[in-house]
């Protein structure tokens, strides 16, 4: 979807706050929210892409202003409502008022190391040989659909060169809809001067793009 999250190349956000103190968490509630998200049981179908799509649908004003981990928790709240696990009233009160059941059981403290170690891989066996090779000229599609996609708007309709053929990976546009489908993934390089002509840019921008985002050029 063409949402507020698609920030690459947008203007008007000012300088980067480079003076931030280098700590893991900036407050107790941030640490707690992070720990809750990592520790909580997830329902089947709450893929990373579905989570991302849920975050993309946060009200634009909230997306830009609400703290990041606060948004994470709200996404899981919205997923719980969407999956029939909790009502808005339960989330607001913090207490279970209905028979709506969650996906249990809760994971114990020993799960931390195992969960990290077994981070879900997204690579899949090759289904069809990749259509492009390193060095191929490609052009990104200019589509915009209302669902989740990892083809940012700033790169659509532009020509680039394949630098790496990465293997076959779960396709996010489908994964966000609960459908698993895998495609060849490429790292494609674009000249910034083509993306934003006349600004004197001399750098390359490299993105990881799935085969169905690309046409031969």
């Amino acid at each position: 979807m063409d949402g507020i999250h698609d920030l690459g190349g947008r203007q008007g956000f000012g300088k980067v706050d480079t003076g931030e103190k280098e700590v893991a968490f900036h407050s107790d509630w941030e640490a707690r929210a992070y720990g809750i998200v990592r520790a909580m049981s997830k329902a089947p179908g709450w893929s990373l892409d579905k989570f991302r799509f849920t975050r993309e649908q946060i009200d634009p004003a909230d997306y830009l202003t609400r703290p990041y981990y606060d948004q994470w928790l709200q996404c899981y709240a919205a997923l719980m409502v969407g999956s029939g696990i909790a009502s808005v009233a339960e989330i607001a009160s913090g207490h279970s008022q209905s028979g709506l059941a969650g996906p249990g059981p809760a994971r114990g403290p020993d799960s931390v190391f195992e969960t990290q170690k077994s981070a879900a891989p997204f690579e899949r066996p090759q289904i069809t040989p990749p259509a492009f090779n390193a060095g191929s000229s490609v052009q990104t599609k200019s589509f915009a659909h209302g669902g989740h996609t990892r083809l940012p708007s700033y790169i659509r309709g532009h020509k680039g060169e394949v630098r790496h053929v990465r293997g076959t990976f779960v396709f996010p546009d489908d994964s966000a809809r609960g459908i698993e489908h895998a495609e060849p993934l490429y790292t494609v390089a674009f000249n910034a001067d083509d993306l934003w002509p006349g600004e004197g840019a001399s750098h390359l921008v490299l993105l990881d793009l799935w085969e169905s985002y690309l046409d031969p050029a």
Partner: protein
Amino acid sequence: MSDHEHKNTGDVHRELHSHLPPEPALRVRAMESLLIEKGMLDPETVDAWVEAYCEKIGPKCGARIVAKAWSDADFKARLLENGAEAVKGLDDAGWAVAHLRVIENTPAIHNLVVCTLCSCYPHAILGPPPNWYKMAAYRSRAVRDPRGVLKEFGVELGGDIGLRVWDSTSELRYLVLPGRPEGTGGWDEERLASIVTRNSMIGTQRDLSIDAGQA
């Protein structure tokens, strides 16, 4: 997904926002207590995750990978070929990132990592990302005006140095391998790791200072 479903998720967000307590700390407390009541959360597991990310997992994990690459040419070659495979078997980095890719800074090339669409970041080897990495200013400008962004971090990149900006749009996670500074010959891996900063592994720092190196 249909427009109908889109509207529903956006509406659920707006409804949650208007019904939840205004303070993030209170919202977090309400979610924690509800998840416990629903049987979806053990608070001791939350403690364990927080402890892991405050004490064990952080930029020092990435720094050890960098120090090993500087010290061991064979490891470095494998790391650049396939980062995820190369770090398997290293103590706490071995299980870190399923699809890690490492990109090398050289005298002629500088690399910078961003995620314009969300905030993808190699948490398990660098810890949680800094706030600026998640904010609109960095995410919007890193791809379009990276030299301007680098200047704000105090990096004046010479015009003869090629700049590559990596937008993390897939599940590949990028780690920059910074250049090894002069004057570090004979240092062991532990001492080398002590001078590697978080920002140098994201690419918002280029030159490392050897002053911090613990003998």
